[in-house]
């Protein structure tokens, strides 16, 4: 394990009943860095975030957060670790019965005994950081997808976490919102001195601002490096992914019977 890494994954194996997802994964996430985990849909990127958060247990290997092995912690231990983490879910996951203000105030109210005026200042500061101070009275249903995600980001950083995890932060956003989120991830990471872990498959955005990138394929880390190193990579998988070629090491067709047999053309 690397001493400087706030999150360290070693020899991780995980799968569901009928499907192996991770065979043997090693990753380190260094303090202050923006690290992206990339790979095709269904390769277990989001599962890694859930393993880091202790929502599921690995079948082999371990995930360490701040030096502690996550799956060996008690419920309280896991909750203590999670207080150092903030997570942005793919669709924001804002509490639909609470206003924007109350959503951001939620973790502060749950974990501190601060009085209302301090909470108000904190909430407005966080909302200001994502540019949505003006939306504090709105309900989540009144927000656009991009705005909802920015509010969720304000909520994720409400307690100034050491680790911020993003699950597909760019999925389904228009180019302007995408740019806004990119800038926010970088600027919040640097302002808070946090470590950001981003799960995504958007190549252009990620290569523009990430410090380090891991490529997942077939349950292992297929490639890793800084964006510049990966751009020069000769690995077929990386080339296919970066240049969005539809066929390559990752086949276009899912495994199936012979086409002619399925169409009944052969007796």
């Amino acid at each position, binding site marked *: 394990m690397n001493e400087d890494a706030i999150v360290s994954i070693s020899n991780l194996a995980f799968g569901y009943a009928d499907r192996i997802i991770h065979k043997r994964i090693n990753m380190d996430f260094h303090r202050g860095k923006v690290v992206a985990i990339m790979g095709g849909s269904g390769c277990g990127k989001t599962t890694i975030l859930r393993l880091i958060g202790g929502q599921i247990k690995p079948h082999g290997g371990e995930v360490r957060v701040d030096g502690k092995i996550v799956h060996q912690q008690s419920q309280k231990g896991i909750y203590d670790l*999670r207080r150092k983490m903030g997570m942005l879910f793919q*669709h924001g996951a804002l509490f639909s019965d609470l206003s924007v203000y109350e959503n951001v105030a939620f*973790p502060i109210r749950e974990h501190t005994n601060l009085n209302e005026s301090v909470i108000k200042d904190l909430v407005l500061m966080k909302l200001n950081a994502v540019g949505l101070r003006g939306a504090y009275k709105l309900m989540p249903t009144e927000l656009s997808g991009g705005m909802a995600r920015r509010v969720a980001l304000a909520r994720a950083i409400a307690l100034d976490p050491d680790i911020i995890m993003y699950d597909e932060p760019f999925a389904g956003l228009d180019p302007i919102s995408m740019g806004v989120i990119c800038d926010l991830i970088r600027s919040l990471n640097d302002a808070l001195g946090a470590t950001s872990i981003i799960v995504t498959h958007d190549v252009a955005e990620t290569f523009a601002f990430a410090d380090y990138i891991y490529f997942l394929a077939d349950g292992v880390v297929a490639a890793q490096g800084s964006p510049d190193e990966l751009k020069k990579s000769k690995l077929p998988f990386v080339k296919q992914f970066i240049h969005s070629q539809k066929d390559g090491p990752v086949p276009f067709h899912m495994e199936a019977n012979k086409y002619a047999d399925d169409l009944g053309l052969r007796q």
Partner: protein
Amino acid sequence: MILFFEKIGFSLRQKITRLGAAARLFFSILTYTPENFKRFRLTIKEIYATGVLSLVIIVVSAFFVGMVLGLQGYYTLQKYGSSEAIGVLVALALVRELGPVVTALLFAGRAGTAITAEIGLMKATEQLSAMEMMAVSPIARIVAPRFWAGIITMPLLASIFSMVGVLGGYVVAVPLIGVDEGAFWSQMQANVDFQFDIVNGFIKSLVFGIACTIIALFEGYDAPPTAEGVSRATTRTVVTSSLAVLGLDFILTSFMLTV
């Protein structure tokens, strides 16, 4: 043939697994109870959602049930020349049986489905996961307050149901049919026993409250996070709660009449 038994075994095992999961949820709710009572305002909010918002359907149904009881009761009783006993009949039927049972059935349809759909959708939209990742237990924050709200609400709703039902019976029997008002109330007062009738009715509604609420909560918490999953869970809440209420009613009544 073997396939047939396999299917039966599989579905039986699934049902037992779900029962076990529901029991686990029940016990984890109980472990969060002290915390829940420390932050009672969360429960009060849920009492409003499950109780106060169910009042309209409870009051209107109770009034009609009481009126029908008055009509049917009078029709039968007057054959035997004891139409003054209508007050007793209405009150006993409501306090002992109809109050707790019909309230529980309406509760399952109105509040139970709302609880299941709400929790199921919170799960489907990752709100419960988000809460967990914020180191806040969804069972403490979402499930336990709804559970206690259900238990507190059900006996209150059942007693309101019985009261309004008696009023409905009164409206039909006294002003409309012309049964003697004094006989209506005095017979009721003399023949409804606090311990045997009212307390037993209260115990029933308490048990139904626990059953309906835990079923609604579990179905929501266990629902597959899809539109279809939530809709099925909501249906199951109504079906399971109704059957549980009617089954438990028989068991409780047989104990209460024997003891």
